[in-house]
């Protein structure tokens, strides 16, 4: 990792190569997980246009490998600079829900916010994901406004003191009327 000669100012977040041209905070690093080539490409573009760094992988198992959960051993710290995991729900092998569970079960990964995407508006599925700890559930195809909102939310969460976890939200683009109020979970 290159360092500027004579630099004595300490930054709050670690500087990485390529981030030196960023005037303020480093870019958010998003790990995008989707088995569809088309969707991976679109999501990558949406995130890059929103000034995020993106690592796109095609499966839950690849995502876990990247995050350092390879067969239960903790590997390198690459996964630790991931600020958000954005995963598709329906994937062969490991679903987005199963990936979410594995992340929340891991002591060193559980603080990374996970957002699930799906093209299917299935209430039981949405509830299950939110209950398991997903930050949001987004309907596909994603729009730029979804990504911008996510980015703002993650940046705010990062800045704020991480006390208790607040509300979980449903985010539905269809005209769905919730039969129950927003879930409000107590702190872990």
């Amino acid at each position, binding site marked *: 990792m290159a360092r500027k000669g004579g630099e004595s100012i300490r930054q709050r977040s670690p500087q990485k190569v390529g981030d030196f041209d960023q005037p303020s905070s480093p870019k958010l690093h998003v790990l995008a997980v989707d*088995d*569809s*080539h*088309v*969707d991976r*490409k*679109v999501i990558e*573009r*949406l995130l890059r*246009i929103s000034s995020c760094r993106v690592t796109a992988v095609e499966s839950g198992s690849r995502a876990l490998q990247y995050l350092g959960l390879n067969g239960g051993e903790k590997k390198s710290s690459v996964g630790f600079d991931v600020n958000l995991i954005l995963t598709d729900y*329906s994937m*062969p092998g490991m679903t987005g829900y199963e990936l979410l569970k594995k992340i929340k079960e891991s002591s060193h990964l559980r603080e990374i916010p996970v957002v699930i995407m799906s*093209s299917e508006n299935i209430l039981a599925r949405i509830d299950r994901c939110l209950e398991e700890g997903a930050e949001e559930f987004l309907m*596909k*195809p994603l*729009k*730029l406004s979804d990504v911008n909102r996510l980015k703002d939310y993650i940046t705010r969460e990062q800045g704020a003191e991480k006390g208790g976890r607040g509300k979980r939200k449903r985010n539905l683009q269809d005209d769905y009327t919730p039969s129950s109020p927003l879930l409000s979970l107590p702190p872990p």
Partner: protein
Amino acid sequence: MDVVSQMQKQFVDYKQYLYDQGFLDDQFKQLLQLQDESNPDFVFEVVCLFFEDSEKLLNNLATALQQQMVDYKQVDAHVHQFKGSSASIGAVKVKNACVTFRNYCEEQNRELCEKCLENLKGEYLVVKSKLETLFRMEQQILAAGGSIRV
């Protein structure tokens, strides 16, 4: 009107026709907005990926429906994937054909599924041809020294 302006007008009109006739929806417009000077071929690249994926899926579907014992879950999985990618590029008629297909998968009727596949393939080939025409028009404008208005 000079040749380039004429071509540009035709391009804009053709794109509008595709929206008006329901071949493409707002999602395609969203993709166009993600294209800029730094990524001038973004939409073309996404659509090429869509063509590649679609062709694989259509082959997989044909194979799956030819089996002695059709695995309808597998058929449904393929159609679901197709539905996803067509929605992602805004190919709404293809997406709708997938929705219909999935409903018939539940009935587990081979003949109906084969009809659905024919219908899906038909819709796909139409939108493929339209998109290819659109990109060709774009290329012609660029080759003539004009620019594309998004």
